[in-house]
């Protein structure tokens, strides 16, 4: 087996039992790693009782998985998964950083965490040594202090393991903030500052397990590959092409806060009440004023699309964040009526300190602010906060209420979808029309009404098995989500691979694993199998939410309204065209007219167990 360390670790936090786990070659060939393997493991272990598993309960399984391309592909990530407390299905949520590299260098392909620790803990990994350590000193602590403590304690520990090594480098760290500890559904798993696995809500899953962080240091090399020269030559070529992408290298997605609104009319503005603005104050050059003049990259990255922002003076002195990248500029800026880079950097920093996912948390705040605008929520409901658009202080206070589950924050901590249901009951009115979400997941900051964004199909979100996740949109003619399954499963950063054809990626995969994988096998079989597993678990859902494709494979109500402003004013989605596309998509990926995987599709892919389960749950009738 090449490209893999060859073993996974399984940690039961209830019994503190630590085991080694290996998967047969066939499983790795079919499911690769990351998102694909997560779907497989979750199905095998929880599938039979999926509807009853509480994502925030001890039976859920947290997976932190690398893939065969992790560390070799120029641009490294790690994939976090489990039963999602947002969609109640499975989401492969990736985050950049060195964690996956350190884990593989320590001799592990991934971590399977079960059970729940009695007291706050963190997992420390140094090569074959694994310890479950006390996290009481950092429980309740925010990002900065959490990292300070973990870096210091871990370096001391590494020095005691290798006393003669010399100056020890810091380990890689995945951690949660108070939002995760308090089991909110809008909490991210974070690496460094502002690097987040946000979609899925796995920060809350870690919190539910009393798991504050996972720390990894590997002293070994990355696992051997099948053809080192070939792999290095391809990596060099990919990098060279990336070096030519001057605009994206210069600005990253942080160049988008103005242009996605002014040019493509696809940015959420004031809880998506519009998708266009023309605020010159939000131009990239204005953000540039707060950027340290350096690029910010992770292991092997030729793109380094992130920049470091620091507020050295002024009201928000001390705030540190990334660009902010586009999703943060949108969800913690325009979507809250904020068009001032300084304020956006500050809110992004607050958000990161609290361990919130910017998209899910930002969406919950935008939703609350629209309710305030409409007089549905009042100052009294919000503990005295006047939640007017652009009230930065108010939003910072609300973020804290969400992360700590205080007052109205306790409801918003459930995420937009669940908050709309709860508040709707309290206020005796339908609030789902103000909830911009897809199957429990707030939608990425890429509107589809103008048709001018890179995500532009009417089914992009409605048919995705990762729901609102803008990194995994569905598309026609052949089920575009299947191509997103590759980077999430082989676990690398597709930002560093813009423009690489499927063929190139599959050749790269072969140079590492030695396993031949054709596009036909991938799209026609393996990726499709992973998609069916994710779809099955999404439809099983439960215990608190269950999706009906006819009803829920749909766009949020607001997306059906015409755009109210900008050059694409009046543009709206067409219901008939949408239904036609949806049906076409169902057919392309082997689902029936109701969006349920066809028994024949499942059998052909060797998933007759899934068929049986879907029959038992009356999803296949």
């Amino acid at each position, binding site marked *: 087996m090449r490209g893999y360390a060859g073993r996974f670790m399984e940690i039961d936090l209830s019994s503190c039992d630590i085991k080694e786990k290996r998967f047969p070659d066939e499983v790795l060939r079919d499911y690769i790693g990351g998102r694909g393997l997560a779907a497989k493991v979750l199905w095998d272990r929880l599938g039979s009782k999926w509807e009853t598993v509480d994502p925030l309960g001890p039976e859920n399984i947290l997976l932190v998985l690398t893939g065969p391309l992790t*560390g*070799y592909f*120029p641009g490294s990530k790690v994939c976090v998964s489990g039963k999602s407390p947002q969609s109640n299905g499975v989401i492969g949520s990736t985050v950049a950083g*060195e964690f996956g*590299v350190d884990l593989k*260098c320590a001799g592990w392909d991934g971590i399977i965490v079960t059970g729940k620790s009695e007291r706050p803990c963190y997992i420390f990994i140094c090569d074959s040594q694994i310890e479950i350590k006390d996290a009481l000193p950092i429980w309740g602590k925010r990002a*900065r*202090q959490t*990292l*300070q403590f973990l*870096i*210091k304690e871990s370096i001391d520990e590494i020095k005691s393991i*290798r006393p*003669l*090594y*010399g*100056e020890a*480098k*810091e380990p890689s760290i995945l951690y949660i903030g108070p939002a995760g500890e308090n089991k909110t559904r809008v909490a991210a798993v974070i690496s*460094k*500052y502002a690097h987040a696995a946000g979609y899925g809500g796995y920060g809350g899953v870690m919190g539910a397990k009393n798991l504050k962080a996972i720390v990894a240091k*590997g*002293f*070994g*090399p*990355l696992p*051997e590959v099948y053809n*080192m020269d070939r792999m*290095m030559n391809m990596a060099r070529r990919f*990098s*060279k092409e990336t*070096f030519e992408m001057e605009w994206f290298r210069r600005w990253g997605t942080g160049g988008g806060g103005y242009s996605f609104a002014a040019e493509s009319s696809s940015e959420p503005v004031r809880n998506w009440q519009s998708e266009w603005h023309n605020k010159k104050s939000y131009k990239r050059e204005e953000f540039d004023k707060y950027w*340290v*003049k*350096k*690029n*910010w*990259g*992770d*292991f*092997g*990255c*030729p793109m*380094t699309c992130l920049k*470091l922002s*620091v507020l*050295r*003076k002024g009201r928000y*002195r*001390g705030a*540190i964040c990334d660009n902010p990248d586009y999703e943060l500029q949108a969800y913690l800026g325009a979507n809250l009526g904020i068009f001032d880079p300084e304020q956006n950097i500050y809110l992004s920093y607050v958000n990161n300190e609290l361990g919130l996912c910017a998209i899910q948390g930002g969406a919950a705040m935008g939703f609350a602010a629209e309710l305030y605008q409409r007089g549905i929520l009042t100052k009294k409901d919000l503990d005295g906060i006047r939640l007017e658009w652009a009230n930065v202080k108010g939003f910072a206070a609300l973020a804290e209420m969400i992360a700590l589950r205080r007052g109205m924050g306790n409801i918003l901590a459930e995420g937009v979808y669940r908050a709309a249901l709860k508040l709707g009951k309290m206020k005796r009115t339908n609030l789902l029309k103000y909830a911009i979400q897809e199957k429990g997941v707030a939608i990425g900051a890429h509107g589809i009404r103008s048709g001018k964004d890179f995500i532009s199909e009417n089914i992009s979100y409605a048919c995705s098995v990762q729901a609102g996740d803008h990194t995994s949109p569905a598309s026609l003619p052949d089920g575009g989500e299947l191509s997103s399954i590759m980077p999430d499963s082989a676990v690398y950063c597709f930002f560093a691979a813009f423009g690489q054809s499927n063929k190139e990626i599959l050749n790269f995969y072969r140079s590492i694993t030695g396993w031949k994988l054709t596009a036909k096998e991938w799209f026609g079989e393996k990726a499709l199998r992973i998609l069916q597993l994710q779809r099955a678990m999404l439809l099983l859902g439960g215990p608190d939410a269950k999706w009906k494709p006819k009803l829920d494979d749909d766009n949020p109500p607001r997306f059906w309204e015409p755009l109210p402003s900008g050059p694409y004013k009046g543009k709206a989605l067409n219901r008939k065209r949408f239904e036609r596309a949806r049906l076409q998509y169902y057919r392309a990926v082997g689902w029936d007219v109701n969006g349920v995987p066809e028994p024949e599709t499942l059998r052909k892919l060797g998933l007759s167990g899934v068929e049986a389960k879907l029959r038992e749950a009356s999803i296949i009738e």
Partner: protein
Amino acid sequence: MHRSMTRKEKIWILRNYGNCSGCRRCEIACSVKHEGKIWPEASRIRVFMLVPGVEIPHLCFQCEDYACVKACPMQALSVNDRTGAVNVDVSRCTACGLCVKACPGSVPHIHPEGNRVVICDLCDGKPRCVEVCQEGKWNALTTIPIAKISSRKALAKDPKKLTIEVAEEILGAEIAREVMG
């Protein structure tokens, strides 16, 4: 960029810490060149990140007095006449760690296999780390004639000290203190 060794001009690797993106492509290039594998902990150049956003590429400073060479009881270390780099004679090195202690910058480290020290050999005058850093236009690492640096030993500081200095430069002194704790 690279002064040709045929001109017998010794080089020094100039670090501009503020330019380092933390991409660690230098670690990849170094370990592939010297170990034939991607092996960050065996790389002669190591990027420390004691604070996210403050990345410190750390490698030999080639001090004028070569304290590490003097400290070696086994004569395993020597200065390469041509390049000025410290060469490690693996057959003599016992991994005792005295050179690590002698280094004012805490630069050398024991190879993860445990039996020898690793120190930058300047790739015999054409350092791969600099090549890949230049290729990506980050310019955190550049080669310059060694004569241009008047006191190399004064620049040799341990990663923690360098982190404080660079953090102060990037974040300002007060914020740096808050972040470092």
